């Protein structure tokens, strides 16, 4: 049995969806001009940029969404499964600041930070995917092609799938071209997508010009999209958690409708980054338990509809990699895993998503591993019970303990059993040295941040850069240069040539 936490009854999910469908008719959804024609041709009324989307149309669009799909790594292997109750993690995205581990101050993130994050993420099996984690202020910010540049860096340094996103309507094509160059062709990219693109509505109920545009372009390109609706309960959405989940459902249903109208059958994820609204600071506390509850509940609604899901957890509001950071991040990793959210983004993030720490990313990996272990539950894997004549017993069950006791008697010598040696790796998650379980020695005990810094250095020193064929690299460079020219952005052009040293 896989352990699960559910926050919503079937009845409440029904109410949430009923009200979400009501919201789609009144007050309706604000949409960008890019999708007006598409909606009108499907019979949707659009007045003054506000669309009233009827339930039957939404239902029809829901029916064409793939129930599951995979992201592939560079070797063409299935590496991320969106669908069912599979749980995977990726680092948070697009942070602007980096915690300096020496000074403990936040400074603008740079290309070298993104490279370091990618190197560490590449080495950690807890992360099924990379993300375009930080803005590279040295090269791409506030450049118009920053999103492309980040993906360009990640693709050069990683073989894993990538969770990314475009920040302009015009910039998306360059990113799709980059991925197609990586995959070999646009067709191949469609068949074996390596990346998923986050696309965000603006709360409440607004699919802005560029959000709408991105949904259309992704649907037509057949590249997976992930709708990241982010109601802030009490700020940009109803203060009640149930009310915010309802708004999230309405925004996501509207997005899926736009997307499927443009490209029926194109993969899309019921994702989100919902949070409560902090009534003191006006911020979005990502470490709050209610924020985790919102993510879990939103995913539950998506699962009820049979869709792949995503959430934003494993982040903290603390500015340091401290006890608060550990508590908040580990808690939400556990909750997200128990909710069966397919992709949980957010690891490594501090300060309510304003700052990234590679050290925190490594500590979060330990919390994630624990959460993944918990989500596997308690499995029966003892010896098969044999009758005296050697036949399996009637029900084919396994002995939990009796077969092992048959060998040890009352001696207590379990450590000697072959079962112990064969099974302990499956039963126990074996943490890295980041987690201190050692007996006290003569040295003064170290703290987790100190141990993690050493671990980060070790992971980076063992990292090996993927060797990309020269022609692929040349294609990458040509795309970046082309987009830089298009944007008239000579700075980014220069950045493309001067890659960071390994």
């Amino acid at each position: 049995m896989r352990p699960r936490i559910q926050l919503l009854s079937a009845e409440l999910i029904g109410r949430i969806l009923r009200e979400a469908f009501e919201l789609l008719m009144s007050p309706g959804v604000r949409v960008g001009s890019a999708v007006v024609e598409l909606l009108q041709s499907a019979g949707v009324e659009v007045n003054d940029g506000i669309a009233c989307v009827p339930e039957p149309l939404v239902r029809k669009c829901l029916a064409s969404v793939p129930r599951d799909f995979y992201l592939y790594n560079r070797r063409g292997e299935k590496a991320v499964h969106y669908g069912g109750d599979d749980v995977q993690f990726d680092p948070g995205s697009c942070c602007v600041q980096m915690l300096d581990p020496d000074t403990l101050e936040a400074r603008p993130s740079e290309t070298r930070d993104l490279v370091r994050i990618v190197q560490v993420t590449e080495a950690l099996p807890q992360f099924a995917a990379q993300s375009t984690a930080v803005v590279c202020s040295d090269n791409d910010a506030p450049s118009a092609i920053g999103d492309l540049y980040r993906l360009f860096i990640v693709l050069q340094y990683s073989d894993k799938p990538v969770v990314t996103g475009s920040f302009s309507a015009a910039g998306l094509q360059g990113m799709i071209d980059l991925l197609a160059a990586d995959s070999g062709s646009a067709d191949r990219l469609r068949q074996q997508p390596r990346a998923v693109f986050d696309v965000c509505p603006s709360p409440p109920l607004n699919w802005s010009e560029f959000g709408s545009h991105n949904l259309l372009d992704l649907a037509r390109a057949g590249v997976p999209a992930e709708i990241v609706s982010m109601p802030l309960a009490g700020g940009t959405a109803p203060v009640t958690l149930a009310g915010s989940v309802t708004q999230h459902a309405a925004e996501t249903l509207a997005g899926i409708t736009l997307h499927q109208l443009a490209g029926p059958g194109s993969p899309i994820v019921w994702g989100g980054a919902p949070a409560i609204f902090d009534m003191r600071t006006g911020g979005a506390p990502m470490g709050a338990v209610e924020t985790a509850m919102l993510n879990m509940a939103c995913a539950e609604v998506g699962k009820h509809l049979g869709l792949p899901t995503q959430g934003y957890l494993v982040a903290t509001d603390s500015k340091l990699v401290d006890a608060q950071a550990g508590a908040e991040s580990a808690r939400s990793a556990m909750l997200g895993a128990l909710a069966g959210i397919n992709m949980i983004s957010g690891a490594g993030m501090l300060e309510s998503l304003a700052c990234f720490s590679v050290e925190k990313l490594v500590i979060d990996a330990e919390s994630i591993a624990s959460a993944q272990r918990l989500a596997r539950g308690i499995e029966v894997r003892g010896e098969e019970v044999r009758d005296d004549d050697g036949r399996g017993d009637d029900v084919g069950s396994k002995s939990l303990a009796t077969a092992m006791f048959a060998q040890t008697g009352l001696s207590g010598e379990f450590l000697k059993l072959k079962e112990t040696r064969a099974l302990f790796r499956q039963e126990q998650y074996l943490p890295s040295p980041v987690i201190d379980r050692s007996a006290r020695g003569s040295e003064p005990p170290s703290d987790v941040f100190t141990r993690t810094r050493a671990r980060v250095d070790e992971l980076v020193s063992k990292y090996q850069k993927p060797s990309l064929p020269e022609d692929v690299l040349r294609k990458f460079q040509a795309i970046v240069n082309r987009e830089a020219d298009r944007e008239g952005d000579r700075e980014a052009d220069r950045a493309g040539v001067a890659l960071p040293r390994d």
Partner: protein
Amino acid sequence: MSDQLFGEMLQSIVDGAPDRAAELARQALANGVDPLEAVNRGFAVGITFAGDQFGCGEMFLPDLLASAEAMKAAIKVLEPEMLKRGSQRETLGKIVLGTARGDIHDIGKNLVATILSASGFQIFDLGTSVTPEQFVAKAKEVDADIVGVSALLTTTMAGQKAVIEALDRNGLRPRVKAIIGGAAVTSKWAAEIGADGYSRNAIDALELAKNLMGKGTVSA
């Protein structure tokens, strides 16, 4: 009697009760109380108190917004009489506000507008996704003291820099001060783009604006 009335005015603001505040304002006028005095000794004391309470964590944003709404309701009643007497409430300064080009997130900007307006600043809110040219034009038109640019997204923060550059190009600074805010904005970014100030939240923005106008309670 007036003292008691002023006390009730203060309380109506702290309670965030616009109907009550308007009623007290009308009562003051009926009793011949100077409307300016009603503001300065009654309602405005309430909004300052609410700001302080917010600052020390006793009141929360919804409370503060309700207080600001109550303040607005009271001022609306008192304003015609103040105009008649030529005793208009002293404006702390004129502030042009908007979100940076490409940014449609306005919750923070709206909070700032509400709090500053309730506290006596004259606000010219240009709304969302405002171009540098629009900021400059409005600042010239109303002879603004301060221009405030909000940006939530890391991608639109560049728009804050563009506004400051446009203000410089048009020779409006240093007379017109440029302030910035938004979730991703830091004091470092403010320094980098040469902003005259930055604040983390609406109450800090009030303090910042007062300081820039030389009317602060603490030195900048």
